């Protein structure tokens, strides 16, 4: 009896001590900040190391559907025999190869277009492939296959195509980087809302009036907990209409923001306001759905 009591007491003592340790870990982790300013702290380093180790595992899970199909085909090969069957399978295989060649050609064309659209004054990381999503219900992030070895650093914009902002890097290891997508509830960016006629989508250039601010809306892009992407703090007097483009503003007064100006984020889906509101309620349709992302690039300097 006494032994059980002492066991419970030691368990509770351990619980208390480890609770303190957990809180200490949390405090140290938050105090470390991200890896952008003073390098990575020990806890971030542990996570980055784990991300490197897990990279192949995540890749395996991301590509899980492919091997299943291959295994199914191989199983069929074992079961089915005969010349006719073999010829039929060879014909099928040739068709698959032709389809694959066509896919590769299209991909090649797309990559060439990407390179053509680069802004001359910007520096880009190499083309990155999305390895896998990470996080849980509080986050919306992916891991890409470029890292510090490719010149990528934390807090850099990540784009799709030539000019479409999809997120920013958070933690960067040697060969991978975590990207916080624009639809992550912790993502924020200063944006400007401009009519489509005022913005050249391929080049990301704003017309003179829009670049000076004009009477168009400015605010902060965020995804609310109601799960929609929106622009907050847009003045009630601003001119905003459905279909307008949402682009990064790059600056707020004297301050330079995290993103260069003119990166396209999405289009205005709806605009509303009520008498008691201080600001307009603006819902934005993102230009790219996170699940459609395959290749992205990091802007490393501008």
């Amino acid at each position, binding site marked *: 009896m006494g032994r059980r009591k002492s066991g419970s007491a030691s368990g509770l003592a*351990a619980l208390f001590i480890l609770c303190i340790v957990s809180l200490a*870990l949390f405090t140290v982790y938050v105090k470390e900040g991200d890896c952008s300013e003073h390098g990575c702290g020990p806890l971030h380093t542990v996570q980055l190391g784990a991300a490197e180790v897990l990279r192949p595992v995540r890749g395996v899970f991301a590509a899980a559907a492919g091997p299943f199909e291959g295994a199914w085909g191989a199983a069929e090969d074992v079961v089915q025999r005969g010349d006719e069957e073999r010829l039929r399978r060879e014909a099928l295989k040739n068709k698959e190869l032709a389809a694959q060649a066509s896919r590769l050609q299209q991909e090649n064309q797309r990559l060439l277009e990407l390179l053509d659209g680069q802004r001359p004054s910007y520096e880009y990381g190499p083309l990155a492939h999305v390895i896998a999503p990470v996080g849980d*219900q509080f986050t919306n992030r992916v891991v890409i296959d470029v890292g510090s070895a490719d010149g990528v650093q934390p807090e850099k914009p990540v784009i799709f195509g030539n000019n479409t902002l999809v997120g920013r890097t958070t933690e960067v290891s040697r060969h991978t980087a975590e990207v916080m997508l624009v639809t992550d509830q912790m993502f924020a960016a200063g944006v400007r809302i401009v009519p489509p006629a005022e913005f050249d989508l391929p080049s990301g250039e704003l017309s003179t009036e829009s670049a000076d601010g004009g009477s168009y809306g400015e605010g902060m892009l965020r995804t609310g907990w109601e799960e929609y992407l929106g622009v907050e703090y847009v003045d009630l007097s601003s001119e905003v209409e459905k279909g307008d483009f949402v682009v990064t503003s790059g600056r707020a007064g004297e301050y330079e923001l995290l993103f260069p100006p003119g990166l396209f984020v999405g289009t205005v889906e709806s605009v509303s306001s009520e008498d008691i509101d201080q600001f307009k309620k603006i819902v934005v349709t993102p230009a790219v759905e996170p699940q459609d992302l395959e290749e992205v690039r990091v802007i490393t300097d501008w």
Partner: protein
Amino acid sequence: MTRHSISRAALVVAVAALLEAVLSPYLTFGGISPKLAVIGVVFAVSGLRDLQAVLLGFFGGVVFDALGGGLGLFGVGALGGLLAGILSARVGTVPRKGTEVFLLAQVVAVAVAARDLIGLAAINLSGLRGPPLGEFLVTGVLPDALLNALLAYAVGGWLLEFVRGKGGT
């Protein structure tokens, strides 16, 4: 009282943490995601002493944090694992017949709710913007706890058998 193999329990906890860190992003629907690490801890430590349960729960949580699972905020998984461990160990001392999995599934529900709330507190404490508490309780914590309890009930029997091994009763 049934005793579990500590090495098997540690294996279950580690594998569950790894699986959650890798698989959870694919299986997240709104405010709900499978909390495999919590389920693993609860079923693995239910037959252990308090001290062992607490240590294993902490171990599972730290592994989960190190792998960048969940929020990626270090300490959140550790605290969640600790709570899951002590709750499971305490429930493990209650005599029961044939209702063990059901009882532990309820522990999973409580532990998942606790970890969700710890996550919310961590978000706010780290200076990020969290959802309103009331809304999160209804649309996040409650369904998350219920569905994870159901998942735990579905796989719990198998997990218990594995942790007990051949010598278990």
